[in-house]
């Protein structure tokens, strides 16, 4: 009887484990099924590298280069802001901070992660956007930069907590050895601990970037959503995610536009898949 129970529970858990993979597969197949129909009317090359996004015109122009670049600029900006701050914060928490302060900082970062993105977007809209317009003397503050700054706040908790874990899991002997050889605390961090934890830190950064690429609500509110080819971070951009969110309601089911939005979904899926796989390889690479 006991053995029987054990068997059932074991299989149940196995099922739970497989479920997530099964769901991902289903989602991907659905995306593929809906998105692939687009390429009977437009070539893949034109879809990815064309410059005009006019989805509701007749005939529609469904070319997503401006959207890809929009996502790229916002993500790049967010990475430049969040990586140094995030990694610095992780080092401070793991190595320097007093245990009491450490607890407070960790709680604060968890709280930051819990703020809904629509709230960040709203705060950005009323505080950051006018400020960006003023400081850079721009025609409008709804730019990629505004999006980057707000998204950096969202990427930071991921980066900090994973990088901190990586630093924490370095064997104590490394640090002790370095200090015993006469290195200062900073030299130990910079020359010994950071290289030792580098794979974990890269993984942290990749996962943070993944979070930024997939973010929708905040960017839709503060990046201006203009589908032009951006050549600087101080211009309005339209991201892949915001396009899907803004246009899904309008797209007639079964139309070219509808398929194009699913094709954008595939592009996003592939991007985040690549990022996650990269993060995973780094995470499992043992020094």
């Amino acid at each position, binding site marked *: 009887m006991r053995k029987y129970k054990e068997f059932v529970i074991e299989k149940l858990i196995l099922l739970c484990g497989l479920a997530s993979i099964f769901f991902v597969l289903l989602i991907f197949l659905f995306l593929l099924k809906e998105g692939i129909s687009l390429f009977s009317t437009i070539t893949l090359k034109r879809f990815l590298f064309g410059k005009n996004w006019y989805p509701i015109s007749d005939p529609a122009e469904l070319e997503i280069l401006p959207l890809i670049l929009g996502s790229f600029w916002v993500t790049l900006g967010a990475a430049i802001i969040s990586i140094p701050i995030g990694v610095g914060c992780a080092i401070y928490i793991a190595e320097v901070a007093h245990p009491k302060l450490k607890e407070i900082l960790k709680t604060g970062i968890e709280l930051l992660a819990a703020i809904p993105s629509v709230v960040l977007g709203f705060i950005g809209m009323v505080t950051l956007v006018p400020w960006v317009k003023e400081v850079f003397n721009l025609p409008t503050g709804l730019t990629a930069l505004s999006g980057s700054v707000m998204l950096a706040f969202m990427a930071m908790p991921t980066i900090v907590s994973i990088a901190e874990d990586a630093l924490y899991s370095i064997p104590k002997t490394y640090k002790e050895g370095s200090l015993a050889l006469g290195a200062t605390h900073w030299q130990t961090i910079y020359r010994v601990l950071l290289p030792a934890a580098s794979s974990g830190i890269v993984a942290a950064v990749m996962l943070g970037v993944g979070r930024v690429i997939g973010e929708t609500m905040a960017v839709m509110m503060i990046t201006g959503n203009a589908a032009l080819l951006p050549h600087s971070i101080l211009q309005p951009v*339209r991201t892949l995610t915001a396009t899907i969110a803004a246009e899904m*309601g309008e797209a007639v089911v079964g139309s070219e536009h509808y398929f194009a939005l699913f094709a954008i979904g595939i592009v996003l899926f592939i991007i985040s898949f690549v990022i996650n796989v990269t993060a995973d390889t780094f995470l499992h690479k043992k020094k």
Partner: protein
Amino acid sequence: MFKKWIVLILLSASILSPSFAKDGNSIQIKGSDTMVNLSQAWAEKFMEKNPNNFIAVTGGGSGTGISSLISGTCDISNSSRDIKEKEVVLAKKRGVNPYEIKVGLDGLAVVVHPSNPVSKLTLQQLADIFTGKISNWKELGGKDQKIVLLSREVNSGTHVYFKEHVLRKGDPNSREEFAPEALMLPSSQALADEVSGNSGAIGYYGMGYISPKQKPISVAKNEKSPYISPKIENVISGKYPISRPLFTYTNGTPTGLVKKFVDFMLSKEGQEIVLKTDFVPIKK
């Protein structure tokens, strides 16, 4: 007391259970953001008079409303543009028969920041501004400042109407598009906020959103015709060049509660509400 509880329970049941909603006690209205306030005002007045009925109003954009009507998730869809041929075909395929009712008129106001010295434009100038051919206020007699174009998102009936009737001047063969530089804002309110905070901005929305923080532009059909300001009397008289009909779509000719509500919208009282919410009634 007991009776009150029953009403409350029934009311919450009618909100919570979709099956109950089909019983004809409640209506779901979806669609045009432009018409949300108007629709809400109608619904409130109607429910005041018929306390046993429940009418839920949500926005989302004209396209969203029509999509919902087609997929059967709303009873009435508001739209600030005509239903497209494609949408009719799709609806028929799903056994839905969109029935069009004109319920009011709306003037589209073009607005700029109050400090902007430009106060009148022709339709041609507007088209050139929004397609990007004119990009500095200097060319229109204003300050030497870049024009910031503000538009609604593509799911907005206002966006579609403005493109077809201002940018393309009603010519179905025209290929004019909004300049790619145009910022796409998710709501009329967001657009109003951006205009009131940006001295180089120009945008458009339904007349109802005009406030002292934005300056409406007087528009002329061409250089020879007079410049007309977006006011209700000018829309009624047909002088203001950018006005559009507001529609309501139902599945087939309205029956039951939907008919009762449609009749109310078109009644004298309903049309007074149209005027009160800064739109233009269809019947005098």
